[in-house]
């Protein structure tokens, strides 16, 4: 998303003389020419790609992530996971329209280099999508498309967290937690990273092209806090809790891989060279991470597994996300290999050592992968390491420092607020289903249905 700074600047938040001059010329031109010709600022190629990307990212959640997750739970909970993803898709859509987009992207009161309240969160000027019409533009694409594209990120982030508390959380508590979390945690972090000059991360030069910090670290940390607070599933880890259908999981992982081209290449907000490079490095990092996980598992457990290779692929997709606008193919290989190995360690060794039950490894994959990707972005963005180059005045050291600030701030902010929100929700409705409901499975006990109906 960093590359969008130019297009955002032209649309009204100029930071340097050149774009201010451009703004004046554009303004004059708009004033002088008739309405019909004002479509000039809109690029139909960019718009076509952004429409496509938006559909691809929505496809990542429904059905991609839904299938990936639902295959990993026991058959008595398959519907509960699908239901969570589907309900979140619907609820986040409305929250985004009502106030989410405004809190994330409203630029009222922002000034380059000045830290004030609006460096951290947007105002309510765009609540209910005030001012977003058929003619409003974000860069070279209609703002309606930008709103919907960003909405799909707002949808997938809470859905990722759902992996941590699968098979035991109350549906009502889940909805309440996510509505609060999306408003209080996601929207501000998104604002800090992507809303333009004056935003906290943006001004510090934190590189997060497609959401390593905003989406993955954010979701991963919230997942870890939730897994710890809600407690282990009954019987974990003594009893066998195997995935009930890895075929669904593999299909979901494949959809995630394909959909991720919309996530990363779409984050260029244009059909240009940056989008092309983002697509290429996404493919390379994902393949590298899939192979890394496969090999590590092969060595450690004697056999390569399908669940292993697809989980590795997701780890690679996560890790390349912040880097996909900044690194080249060689950086992508290193980021992929590192995330494949480190996420394996996170989802197996760390999880078992610390004893929390992150059911579907939302922290192990998205938290760890996001942190690995965000930090290595600072290294491999350097031109000398095949990257697209650092901003003027930045060195690998200072860029890495900026990345550390972004990561650390997100971990602390998200961790503390997730904890508080969960405590409030626990007090209001209780986080966890009753023991007998958990034993019968959430499909029957929460939804009065079963995924695999038997005549007997």
């Amino acid at each position, binding site marked *: 998303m960093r590359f969008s700074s130019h297009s955002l600047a032209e649309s009204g938040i100029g930071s340097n003389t050149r774009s201010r001059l451009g703004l004046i010329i554009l303004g004059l031109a708009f004033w002088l020419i008739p309405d019909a010709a004002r479509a000039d600022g809109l690029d139909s190629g960019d718009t076509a790609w952004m429409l496509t990307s938006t559909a691809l990212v929505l496809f990542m959640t429904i059905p991609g992530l839904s299938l990936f997750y639902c295959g990993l739970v026991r058959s008595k909970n398959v519907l509960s996971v699908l239901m969570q993803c589907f309900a979140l898709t619907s609820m986040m859509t409305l929250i985004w329209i009502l106030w989410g987009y405004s809190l994330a992207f409203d630029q009222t009161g922002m000034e380059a280099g000045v830290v004030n309240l609006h460096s951290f969160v947007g105002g309510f000027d765009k609540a209910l999508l005030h001012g977003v019409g058929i003619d409003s533009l974000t860069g070279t694409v209609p703002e309606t498309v930008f709103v919907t594209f960003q909405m799909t990120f707002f949808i997938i982030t809470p859905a990722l967290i759902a992996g941590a508390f699968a098979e035991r959380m109350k549906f009502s508590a889940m909805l309440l937690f996510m509505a609060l979390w999306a408003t209080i945690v996601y929207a501000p972090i998104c604002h800090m990273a992507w809303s333009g000059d004056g935003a906290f991360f943006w001004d510090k030069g934190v590189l997060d092209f497609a959401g390593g910090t905003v989406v993955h670290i954010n979701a991963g940390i919230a997942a870890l806090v939730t897994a710890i607070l809600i407690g282990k599933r009954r019987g974990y*880890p003594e009893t066998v809790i195997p995935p009930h259908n890895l075929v669904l999981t593999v299909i979901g992982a494949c959809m995630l891989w394909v959909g991720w081209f919309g996530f990363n290449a779409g984050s260029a907000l244009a059909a240009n060279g940056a989008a092309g490079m983002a697509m290429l490095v996404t493919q390379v990092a994902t393949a590298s991470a899939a192979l890394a996980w496969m090999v590590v*598992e092969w060595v*450690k*457990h004697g056999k390569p*597994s399908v*669940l292993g290779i697809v989980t590795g692929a997701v780890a690679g997709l996560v890790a390349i996300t912040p880097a996909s606008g900044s690194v080249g193919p060689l950086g992508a290989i290193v980021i992929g290999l590192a995330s494949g190995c480190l996420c394996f360690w996170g989802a197996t*060794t760390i999880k*078992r050592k610390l004893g929390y039950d992150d059911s579907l490894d939302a922290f192990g994959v998205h938290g760890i992968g996001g942190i690995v990707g965000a930090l290595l972005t600072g290294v491999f963005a350097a031109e000398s390491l095949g990257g697209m180059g650092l901003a003027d005045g930045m060195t690998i050291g200072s860029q890495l420092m900026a990345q550390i600030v972004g990561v650390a701030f997100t971990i602390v902010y998200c961790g503390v607020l997730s904890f508080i929100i969960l405590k409030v929700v626990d007090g209001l409705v209780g986080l966890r289903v009753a023991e007998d409901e958990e034993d019968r499975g959430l499909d029957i006990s929460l939804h009065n249905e079963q995924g695999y109906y038997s005549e007997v």
Partner: protein
Amino acid sequence: MKLLKCVVRPNALEKVKEALSALGVMGMTVSEVKGYGRQKGHKEVYRGAEYNIDFIPKLEIEIVVGEEIAERAIDAVKEAANTGNIGDGKIFVVPVDEVIRIRTGEMGDSAI
């Protein structure tokens, strides 16, 4: 009449069925079952979590035969399902009091 409950390896089904057909056994009921005996289970690994799975998939073939071919049927299953390795399964022989064909009400050998 005898009920033979034959617990065999899943891949033995075709051979057992052919051997029984050759004896004139006209029907059977097959169920997918899981169990353990002397054969050890196997290991499954999901994201580093190793599970020892004791229950091994088998097929249970149920047939009812008249006294006169019971011995030959048992021999046929024994031969068809035998690989010589642990885990080939077992045959339980149970006396049957009566057989009734629901459609016609026939009883005894002619209902088998």
